[in-house]
């Protein structure tokens, strides 16, 4: 009987660490009202909260641009490094080597990644650096008032009427080909898909590359833009429906082996992919690239998880590092003894 049950405990709702969602928030955003990036920040907060990530165990990294400002707007209790334009991959690589026990989340933009940052981006992918790499992709340079970026679609139109006459770089097929082990695309306006994708990303060990279409309400949300809210609502073609079951939520969910694929993540959780395209297998590298290229030919914007590989060793696995973070190894471990130096000296005499 409702009247007989005890009232719920006072105070806000908390996650498995006992933290309210407030502890996952950041400073007030300074991005434009309605910017897709803000929605992505919200989903990051939700995913970290729901997954029970301790804020102090996360490092946030970014380059330069509107997107790269956004780490200030979520998770204030996490260390953050807003670096230089296009160089977030190298800073992340160093930070992760310095402390490979941390979860790392990088936020970049289409200019920061696909133009100035392309050199470092491809090498990060190749190394399968264990981190979540989000491209907040609006196809345009916002801070310099609306020039095309390298992910802008051919034929896309600027507010000023300028037409883009170069083809876009598809960061997803690039990521799959070069070695990332979790590759997906989502839309900042698709709360459910993006949240599931982010939660799975947290459970993955290796490079997670997520291209999130994020309309720029000021410079790229008009008629003729292919990265506008309207265009995405009309052209978004999900290839799978995502569900995610964290390892700590031992829920038995029925799934049909014919239409559902269950991917076991590194931490024991499950990414459940309900196939929309019957023939699509996200563990097949060649197939996934082919699907992306075909969709591109047809003018479709595919979303979903395109590729997952939980077998490939990450960069830190390959380096065979000690368990403890390199940053806090004591002097007794990192400075060889006097006897060692004496031996080296004797060999040089």
């Amino acid at each position, binding site marked *: 009987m409702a009247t007989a049950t005890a009232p719920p405990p006072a105070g806000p709702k908390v996650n498995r660490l006992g933290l309210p969602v407030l502890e996952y928030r950041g400073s007030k955003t300074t991005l434009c009202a309605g910017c897709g990036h803000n929605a992505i920040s919200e989903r990051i907060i939700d995913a970290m909260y729901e997954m029970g990530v301790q804020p102090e165990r996360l490092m946030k990294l970014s380059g330069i641009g509107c997107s790269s400002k956004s780490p200030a707007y979520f998770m204030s209790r996490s260390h953050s490094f*807003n670096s230089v334009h296009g*160089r977030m991959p*190298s*800073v992340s*690589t160093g930070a992760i080597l310095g*402390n490979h026990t941390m979860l790392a989340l990088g936020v970049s933009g289409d200019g920061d990644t696909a133009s100035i940052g392309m050199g470092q981006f491809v090498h990060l992918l190749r190394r399968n650096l264990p981190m979540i790499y989000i491209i907040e992709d609006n196809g345009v340079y916002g801070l310099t008032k609306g020039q095309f970026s390298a992910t802008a679609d051919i034929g896309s139109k600027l507010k000023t009427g300028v037409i883009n006459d170069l083809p876009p770089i598809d960061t997803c097929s690039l990521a799959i080909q070069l070695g990332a082990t979790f590759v997906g695309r989502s839309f900042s306006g698709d709360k459910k898909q993006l949240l599931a994708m982010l939660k799975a990303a947290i459970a993955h060990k290796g490079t997670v590359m997520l291209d999130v279409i994020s309309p720029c309400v000021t410079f790229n949300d008009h008629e003729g833009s292919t990265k506008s809210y309207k265009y995405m609502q009309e052209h978004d073609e999900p290839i799978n429906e995502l569900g995610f079951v964290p390892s700590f939520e031992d829920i038995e969910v029925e799934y049909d082996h014919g239409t559902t694929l269950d991917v076991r993540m590194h931490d024991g959780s499950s990414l459940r992919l309900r196939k929309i395209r019957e023939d699509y297998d996200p563990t097949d590298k060649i197939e996934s690239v082919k699907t992306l290229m075909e969709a591109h030919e047809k003018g479709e914007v595919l979303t979903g998880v395109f590729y997952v590989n939980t077998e490939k060793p990450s960069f830190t696995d390959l380096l*065979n590092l000690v368990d403890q973070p390199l940053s806090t190894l004591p002097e007794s471990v990192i400075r060889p003894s006097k006897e060692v130096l004496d031996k080296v000296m004797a060999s*040089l005499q």
Partner: protein
Amino acid sequence: MAIGDLALGQEQSTTALADAAKRVVNDFSIQVATVNGSGSQSANSVLLKSIFGMGVPVSGKNLFPSNIAGLPTWYTIRASKDGYVARKKYIDILIAMNPETAREDILALPSHGVAIYDESLNLKQYRDDVVCYPVPFDKITAAVCPEAKLRKLVRNMVYVGVAARLLDIDMNCVEAALKKQFAKKQKALDLNFGAVKAGADYFAEKLTKQDPFFIEHMNATSGKIVIDGNSASGLGAVFAGVTVVAWYPITPSTSVVEATIEYLRKFRVTEDGKATFAVVQAEDELAAIGMVLGAGWAGARSMTATSGPGISLMAEFSGLGYFAEIPGVIFDVQRTGPSTGMPTRTSQADLLFTAFLSHGDTKQVILLPGSVKECFEFGYAAFDLAERLQTPVFVLSDLDLGMNNWMSDPFIYPDKPLDRGKVLTAEDLTKLGGFARYKDVDGDAIGYRTLPGTDHPKAAYFTRGSGHNESAGYTEKPDEYVAVMERLARKFDTARGLVPAPILERSNSSKIGIIAYGTSHYAIAESLDDLKKAYDFDADYLRVRAYPFNDEVAEFVAAHDRIYVVEQDRDAQLASLLKLDLPADQVTKLRSILHYNGLPMDAQSVTDELVTKEGL
């Protein structure tokens, strides 16, 4: 060497001037002219170590082309009873093994010089004032090396034998050097020693000594080590406890990292086979320094090594390191510029660029090692300084120091524990209740930092290269920006007192002073000895070892009437930096002696300049 001093060839060197009847002992230079990739390196090393083994101070300089195989290369060995190790301007003994340069090489010899060459070259035709020793190298080699494909290599050991007998080098010392070179490879040892003996025998049987040069036993190398500066830097980094190394190969710095990797693999792997370090060969220098700063931010001791073109690429990140106050160590082994320049030739021309590396008001801390021992010492001190000062620290050596072998006293184990700088732990934060990342709490303009992963809700801060206030918050407020910039300037003053102090190398209460850094030292020290002997000329000499300059530098300038700043670049970069630092009335005292042809500085060049400028 031929390409540098051809025009001076007919002039007479001081040693070669000696009467042929008079013995010149342990004081001359030998130049081996060969072809890059011909395997002469082992032979040259054996010759050098044989002389070292006889207790005679010796130095070797490799003058090589930017090429894998086929171009001319020269290796100079200088024996000096007085311990001088600068490049000698004149060669006394030439071993001409490269037909392409043989003519030029012999023309560059001073009168009464000595030439050993393959008899087919008939070099006698070019000089009648040079002692000539033609040797049928191919015939001798074929006799001791039945395997044709090895002859190219073994041929080099024949000249070692000829030179050893010519100079009366103890064959036991040659054998010992060979044993060290070929360690456990008995077959190679036998073959090579056979070639050495064949060369020596040929000289003894067919040739008559007509020159004055001899090596005699001394006791000046006992307990000394021989090492190149790059290996010494790498060893320093390993004893600094470096944990993250990110690099992109570039001559002449590559061997810094190669040595570091070798030592790390030997000394820094745990019993269960795990690495206490991470090495990444980056995609370029931009990424290399980005990784260094990322790792430094995370709390690791991180380093990279590069040279001029790499330093150019590192400019943007260096400014971030300065402004966001992130530790990291950058070894710059200087080569000639501008642009690609001469990649295998030495220089000191990165100094000014590095001092202000990056846009905006940026100032960088630079250490200036002048010996292999200092490469080691600064190699580990740089990491302490970087973490203490929370800023990138550059270690500027040069190709001459980095890639050549130098004799040194053994390195001494660091006498202080690692200085990890101002880092707050979770316990500290609980006591303090929080912190402001860029607040000057202690009056030394250095704030406290926390490392990612510190288990405290107040541990995190936001690192950025954009305008920030003392709490690390974003700012565009004029007063907050100025406050940070002024504190950074004060921090640079703090650095002044922490970096290695200059060394007063010579003090004679002279009115004339000399200021220099790095490898210029060796030429200056020798030149001042020569000037004392020849002209009874004295100068005081201060060797600076870091930027920002310690207060002693200004005091030294103030105490002298004239100061000669001796350096290896065209634009008087050290003098320029000094001028920025000195009071206006002191600036006019400075004048420059510059050497920038890509060859290591030699004493004669310094002497000539001082003689002219001082009217001696």
